[in-house]
């Protein structure tokens, strides 16, 4: 379970503090629930994911992770360019306390990513597709109660996407998921509940379809008022 209590967030800009991205978000996200996060560009979806993932700190309010929560997966971070794919994988194993069964996990990552000999080359030589393959494989190699996914499913080429989606489905079945996607189809496929981020506040929906409906209506209304 993740408790988000009255979280406020704004970023520092070159001209002092920016506008509030999140203004009092309060949520309780149960484990084993798949939640889709919807909202316009810039509504704070990635910001909220980063805060939940613990890689950023709220200006006000608190976030409690009462279960194992993944790092925010999929926005291109988490890979050190000067290290090879294998060395990156080892690093992630180590910081997650999997020193003992590292060999198996590395083997899984190498097998799933299917990047061939590039696995031994520095990540900075990778194409963006190879990078996202490796990232996706990394995210599957660890057991979390809740996974945070920022457009992870759009990884790689067509062949990989198919494999990635079926792996993602298995993951969604066994653990909780908080995901951002701009595809309504993916959201309804993987998620049961939904969060609509609007004007810095979050609205919880038990049904993802209701969340999508509320979000799409708000867009339509804005379009009509123009």
């Amino acid at each position, binding site marked *: 379970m993740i408790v988000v209590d009255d979280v406020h967030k704004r970023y520092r800009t070159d001209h002092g503090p920016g506008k509030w991205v999140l203004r009092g978000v309060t949520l309780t996200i149960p484990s084993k629930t798949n939640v889709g996060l919807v909202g316009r560009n810039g509504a704070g979806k990635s910001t909220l994911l980063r805060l939940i993932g613990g890689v950023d700190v709220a200006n006000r309010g608190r976030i409690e992770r009462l279960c194992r929560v993944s*790092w925010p997966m999929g926005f291109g*971070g988490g890979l050190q360019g000067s290290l090879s794919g294998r060395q990156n994988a080892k690093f992630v194993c180590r*910081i997650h306390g999997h020193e003992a069964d590292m060999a198996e996990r590395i083997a899984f990552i190498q097998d799933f990513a299917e990047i061939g000999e590039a696995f031994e080359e520095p990540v900075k030589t990778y194409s963006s597709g190879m990078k996202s393959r490796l990232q996706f494989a990394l995210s599957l190699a660890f057991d979390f109660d809740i996974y945070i996914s920022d457009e992870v499913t759009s990884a790689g080429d067509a062949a990989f996407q198919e494999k990635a989606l079926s792996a993602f489905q298995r993951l969604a079945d066994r653990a909780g998921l908080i995901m951002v996607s701009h595809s309504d189809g993916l959201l309804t496929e993987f998620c049961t509940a939904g969060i609509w981020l609007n004007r810095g506040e979050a609205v919880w929906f038990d049904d993802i379809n209701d969340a999508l409906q509320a979000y799409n209506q708000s867009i339509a209304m804005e379009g009509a008022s123009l």
Partner: protein
Amino acid sequence: MPAPEHHARSHLTIALAVWKALFLREAVTRVSGSRAAWLWLILEPVAHLSIVMLIFSAVRRRLFDGVSFALFLAIGILAYNLFRNCATRSMAAISANRALFAYRQVKAVDVVLVRAFLEGVIQFFVGGVLLAAMSVVGFHTLPHDPLAVFFLFAVFWAFGTGVGLILSAGSTLVPEIGKLATLFFVPLYFLSGVLYSPRILPPEMREWLLLNPLMHGLELLRAAFFANYTVVSGVEVGYLVTSTCASIFLGLALHVRFSSRLVME
């Protein structure tokens, strides 16, 4: 509210796992990053020492009775390099590990401390190899007071770490600080008395230069190394240790105060 269903790792376990992972990550790129990187680690101080020796050997051979000038220079260069490498390499640690802050277990202070630690280990081996090699060639490299030598090298290490902590935070928040610091390290070499003893300075100048804790450290180190070397008045171990503690405290305080901004910028 149900209890967390997993076996949570303690903060210490996580920190140790992160430090180990970072240490190995840093060691790999430092020692095998470029072709024969480990060789350059040794060659750099050797070349440094050779060049300085070449310049000064024409001028003088012996500084004081029983003190070989080559050894005098060697320990000065080793100690100064230990400090400078710790400080400058940890200054760059945050930007070099930016990608790894995607994992919440990794904090800015971790990458700085681990880098400074690794640098200390490396310089320790480099120093050992250099002194062993000099001993083979015929220099008397066994220190007069080994315990004090170890202690002073540890202080140089800690001071470098403290300055590294300050500069890493400072240069991440205000990039100009990093540029100024890089500029400042050039005169610092000459202001620290790596090539000379403060006793050759006029007293009023010496007073000013002794504001630099490194000069105290180098002078104390030579006194610990050579039996009949006496430190000039005004050199105090307390000043060196106080400065070291202050730098570490200030550095850690900056990392605590700006912990979230350091991984964000």
